């Protein structure tokens, strides 16, 4: 469905995307994960032929990308990060306009069906300018699905949405995938990609750091666990007692709080509790710190560097 070969984009000496090799199979929900500024939107713009790559190739639906080949574009639906509309139109007029551009048969029924699916049926005759952000995002989904595309490209599809709308759109994406549509989701939200996607590519500073099944990626990200432990006294004097434990990788103290990085091969929380108790501390709370996306990228990056170093040592 989507394949890129050494896709690169440079802007005035700055490399936005470097040697990107993606492969999205038919029927996938592919998560394209990366922090803001990682090169996700540039990649999507190149996939759509709206930004000319500096080098490399893009294949969409089995054909090499040619921005003038509008037949391929008719099979793609896109929801962008920012929503742009003709705000003076009503939502229904807007969909009718795009239906005419895509030459959608049975327009009226199709539009009704989509308004019902995204929950805007009762607001279809309102001017888009009066729509909330969430409603606009839903309308963008309806527009993207209007012509029954084979491939859906979603750039940060749930950013700025309330939890109910996120759930609604997530269900819609899953339903569309069940109907056979291939879905490419770009996001900086690890949790969102985790809930939706079967396969994930992680991009950071324009480079694809990892591309694998979600489960494999999760394993790679969970080599360590970070705990914050609050005790009843100043933590610093008890630092040695924790640092000497064999499963502890790093430990930091602030006031009465320890921040401890542990190996994740098994659950060491009881061992840590015992060590702190023996050192004379009473534990007030112990929390597992969720790995932030930045930390996840750092982990993956470190793993890649280690892998490269190991390969160089071998050769």
């Amino acid at each position, binding site marked *: 469905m989507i394949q890129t070969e050494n896709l690169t984009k440079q802007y005035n000496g700055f490399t936005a995307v470097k040697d990107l090799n993606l492969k999205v199979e038919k029927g996938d929900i592919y998560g394209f994960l990366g922090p803001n500024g990682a090169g996700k939107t540039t990649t999507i713009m190149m996939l759509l032929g709206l930004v000319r790559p500096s080098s490399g190739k893009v294949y969409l639906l089995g054909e090499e990308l040619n921005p003038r080949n509008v037949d391929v574009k008719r099979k793609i639906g896109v929801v962008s990060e920012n929503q*742009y509309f003709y705000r003076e139109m009503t939502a229904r007029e807007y969909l009718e306009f795009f239906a005419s551009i895509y030459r959608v048969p049975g327009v009226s029924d199709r539009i009704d069906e989509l308004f019902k699916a995204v929950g805007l049926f009762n607001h279809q005759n309102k001017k888009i300018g009066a729509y909330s952000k969430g409603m606009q995002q839903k309308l963008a989904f309806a527009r993207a699905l209007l012509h029954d595309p084979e491939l859906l490209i979603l750039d940060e599809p749930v950013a700025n949405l309330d939890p109910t709308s996120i759930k609604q759109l997530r269900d819609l994406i899953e339903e569309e995938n069940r109907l056979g549509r291939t879905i490419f989701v770009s996001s900086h939200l690890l949790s969102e990609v985790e809930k939706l996607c079967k396969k994930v590519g992680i991009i950071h500073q324009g480079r694809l750091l990892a591309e694998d099944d979600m489960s494999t990626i999760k394993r790679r990200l969970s080599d360590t666990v970070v705990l914050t432990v609050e005790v009843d006294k100043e933590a610093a004097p008890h630092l040695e007692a924790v640092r000497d434990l064999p499963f502890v990788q790093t430990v930091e103290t602030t006031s009465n709080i320890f921040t401890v990085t542990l190996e994740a091969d098994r659950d060491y929380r009881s061992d840590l509790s015992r060590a702190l108790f023996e050192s004379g501390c009473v534990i007030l709370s112990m929390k597992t710190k969720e790995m932030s996306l930045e930390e996840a990228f750092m982990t993956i990056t470190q793993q890649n560097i280690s892998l490269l170093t190991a390969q160089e040592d071998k050769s």
Partner: protein
Amino acid sequence: MSNRGGVVKTLFKRDFVYTFYSWGFYVVLFAAFMISSFILKNFLDGIREEDILVSAYPLNYPLFISVIVISIYLVMLSGVSISREREHGTLEVLFYGPVTAGNFLISKYFKDLCLGIIALAFCAVYFYLVSLTTNLGFTAGLVRALVMGVFMISCVVCFGLFISSLTGRTRSSVLVLLAILGGFLALQFVHAALIGMEREALSTPMLYLRETVSHLFRGINWVSPFAFLNRGLDAVVLDSPLLFGLNIFYAVVYSVIFLILSIISMSLKGVKA
């Protein structure tokens, strides 16, 4: 209708309806007719006082002024048409689908040209009514001037679209257009002033400047859409079918060249502001 034709028609329809039902179009027509009426009144006062008709085509000059006013509106309208969609992001959304730079620009061109033709149709009605009330005569020359006006408007629209294809924001388009048109006007003024001076009275550097300005002026005569307007009206006044035909031919060539340049520049600049 082919897929591309269908896309052009859809884009044209949305844009045309939006502009046609906006007040701007009618304000400009009203302004054009007010200025023409003022000129006509002065002209009629002159006839009354001097008892002499000084022109074979008395309605052509007011018509020319109306066309100028309509052209200024259309050059601004076309001059912001692409940059506004770029700035608002709507261009990007259109290009996700089967819209290309070519069919987008053609739809904009026909939309502005149609508005121009409608404005000229209003002019025809207005001047017909004027001819009935003043007995000045709705001449064949006036009809020719109206026909020429369509081609001149085509040049103006293509020039505006070209400027818009180069710029990312509405404000930049307006500023660039004003700067270029102001530059053309300033050059015309300097040229007229230098040509008006006696050659013997000019120092060597001034002579050199006059020659340079003359060359520039000749070049700009083929770039400025308003110069085409001027030449077109001259062709009508001179009543020369050859000049009339040549001006229409030049206008068509000019429009095609600027449309192609606009498509190229739009493709190179992309959809982002």
